[in-house]
């Protein structure tokens, strides 16, 4: 895991046993995780009795570094060995790595959800209803006599459903079905690496 200089410095300060005792270390790591997950930014997240005696500027720097580290770790889906090797390079003791990893594991799923919610995605099709119709004639042509399908896709996006309606001829529908099959096949192929 690559870390920028400021993050490294912050974490090294956090590793310093003289500045942080065990309880304040644990409190800070826990607070960093919670501050990422709280829905509205809570300015009082660092106002804890264990963290009172620490210089506020240093505390804020370390908090920034810790949150960055946590986010990077979750982004890369880092496992325990990766995290512990990175923290070892930053002079963390084995005990503290253990504490960090246990808290990290506790919150990892939630942070993953948070990261997964960033981005765009297309609507998802939940259901489909169709009707075969017959086009006999229109104002311009007396005899058309063509079948066509009218299709309604029930899609869902961000919790609200929406219908997509369209009509297509036989060939177009076959094309669509063929494309869908291709897509399913590609997904299957991708799963068999």
């Amino acid at each position, binding site marked *: 895991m*690559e870390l920028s200089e400021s993050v490294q410095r912050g974490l090294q300060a956090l590793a310093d046993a003289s500045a942080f005792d065990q309880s304040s270390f644990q409190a800070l790591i826990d607070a960093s995780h919670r501050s990422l997950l709280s829905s509205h930014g809570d*300015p009082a997240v660092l106002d804890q009795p264990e963290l009172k005696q620490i210089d506020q500027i240093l505390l804020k*720097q370390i908090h920034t570094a810790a949150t*960055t580290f946590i*986010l990077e770790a979750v982004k890369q889906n880092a496992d325990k060995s990766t995290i512990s090797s990175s923290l070892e390079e930053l002079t963390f003791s084995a005990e503290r790595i253990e504490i960090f990893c246990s808290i990290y594991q506790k919150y990892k799923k939630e942070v993953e959800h948070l*990261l997964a*919610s960033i981005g*765009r995605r297309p609507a998802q099709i939940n259901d489909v209803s169709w009707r075969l119709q017959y086009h006999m004639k229109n104002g311009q042509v007396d005899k058309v006599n063509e079948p066509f399908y009218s299709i309604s896709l029930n899609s869902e996006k961000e*919790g609200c459903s929406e219908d997509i309606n369209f009509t297509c001829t036989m060939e177009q529908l076959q094309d669509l079905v063929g494309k869908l099959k291709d897509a399913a096949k590609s997904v299957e192929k991708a799963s068999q*690496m």
Partner: protein
Amino acid sequence: MEEVDKILIHALKQVGTDLSEETDSVKQFSSELIVEAVVRCIRVIDPALGNALPTLLPHGMSARFRVGMSLAQACQDIGYKGEIGYQTFLYSSEPEIRSLLMFLVEKLPRERFEASDQPSGKSAVLQRAIAAAIKAQLAVPWLPPNCRLPKYCETQSLLASHSFHVQPLSLPHCTKDPDKKHLKEVKDYQRNVLSPVTAQLSSRTSVVSSILEQHTAELSAAQEWDSEWNSQGLLSRLTPQEYRSRKLTRLRKRIEEQLRSAALPSAESACGVPASASDLSELLHAFRGSAPSDHVLTKSTHFTHTQKFTFTQEAAAVTHSIPTGHQLEGDVQLRQQEELAALQEQFQQLCTDVEHLSADMKLMSVTNAQVLDELKQRELANVQNEEKMQVKKKTIDLLPDADGNLLQLQALVEASTKRVVNLASQWEKHRAPLIDEHRRLKEICSSQDMESSRKLSEIKSLHDKIRVSTEEAKKKEETYKQLLTELENLNQDVSRSAYTQRILEIVSNIKKQKEEITKILSDTKELQKEINNLTGKLDRTFAVTDELVFKDAKKDESVRKSYKYLAALHENCNHLIQTIEDTGTILREIRDLEEQIEAENGNKTVANLERILDDYKAIRQENSALAAKVREG
């Protein structure tokens, strides 16, 4: 043989043969099983050849015979050199089948193993992880939205998604940085007011994206600086700070030039729009930095002046209008409108006035500058003229006593030439050591230059080495991790290590046996030697005794008798030894025969013969049935 059979069965199972768990030796293979195993092996080795063969033995005897023949032919096509025919499959004997299966298993392609040996990079690991994730998601059944369990919500239904939105964060800078002295106010702000990063923005997703973005930006900036410093910075022989400041001034200069070249034409062409020009000139002054700011203010802003002017006017108008607000409404409105119109007129007039005035001012300043220039030129010309006049005045003064003055002048000239020569010689004296000194210093300088460039190249090569080795270390770590995961995945396949262990055991056993054999060989050699020794001794002693006794036998009757006994004893002993040797050879023959019998028993000859008889009868029955059919038909 157990080991061999186990390996064979494992390989056959991998090929796809349907072997039950109980079969653990080739002895237990039935004809059907043998045919299936052989056909599956052939299909893997050569699909075109194998696909024509059936994996199941048919019921009809003649069909079986044909299948056996075609299988034997296929095996020979692949390259099996041993004896093979339909009987190998139908009336199997253990050693033949074993050797055939061993041949086929050895022929099996090894691509699978090689493929797993290939080292693959980080991307391959990632792709594999992605494939595993997709596979897991595909395995989950699709459920309509109403029935979804919360477990599957994350993959099947869409939670509200947020776009990647980045906002700048305010970070407390590190106090450890020694060259940045923070103001006390800044520190106070950071200590007491600045909220932690996660509380600075309202939405938590934008907090997350902003933090990630910030980190990435820092990382990439550091990388860029690193690469630039390694490529250019080191060669410039400056400290990083100097290099940075030099680059900054260079950039500033370039921007300033660009801005100036862009600002000049617009300032000339657009007198009506002075705002852009003045803004740019402000910018220029800001870039210069050292220029006093009040100068900027006084010089730049016609625009700000007009603005100030109009705003104060309006404000004054407003204050005027407030006291009159108490009168009748219609009156008030009318009056207000009139007032407004009047004020607007006034304002417009003032604006035009200002424009006129500013244009006038510009004109004036231009003419002023021209006049100033002219003045300077005139003054210069004046000074020149005055100098000329003085020279002429002096020459006129000297004219009356021309000869005397000429002599004096010549003397002066001579004296000055002498002085010049003197000075030149003195200069030469001083110059020589100075030049030497200069040369010496130059040499030192060049040698230092060389030294420094050498060191620079050394530093560069060191940097390169560092980079290369860090990259290598990273790569190795990655491959290590990958191999670890692969090892974890491979753990189910214990057989390999077991096989190697067994092979090692077998090898050690063979070594022991070899040692024993050599021991026994040396023992037999010794025995042979002893036997030879003893026979030689016996012969010699017999010859000596025979001679002695024969000599005495001529004289004495009783001795003659004993001589006869001696000859009989010798002959009998010879007989005995002969018999013992004969028994040994017979025993050996018996053992050989027993082995042969066992081998024959292993071939299941009797059973096979019975089966052949049965099959023969079956074929005859089939033939007669066919013949009956033909007759009926």
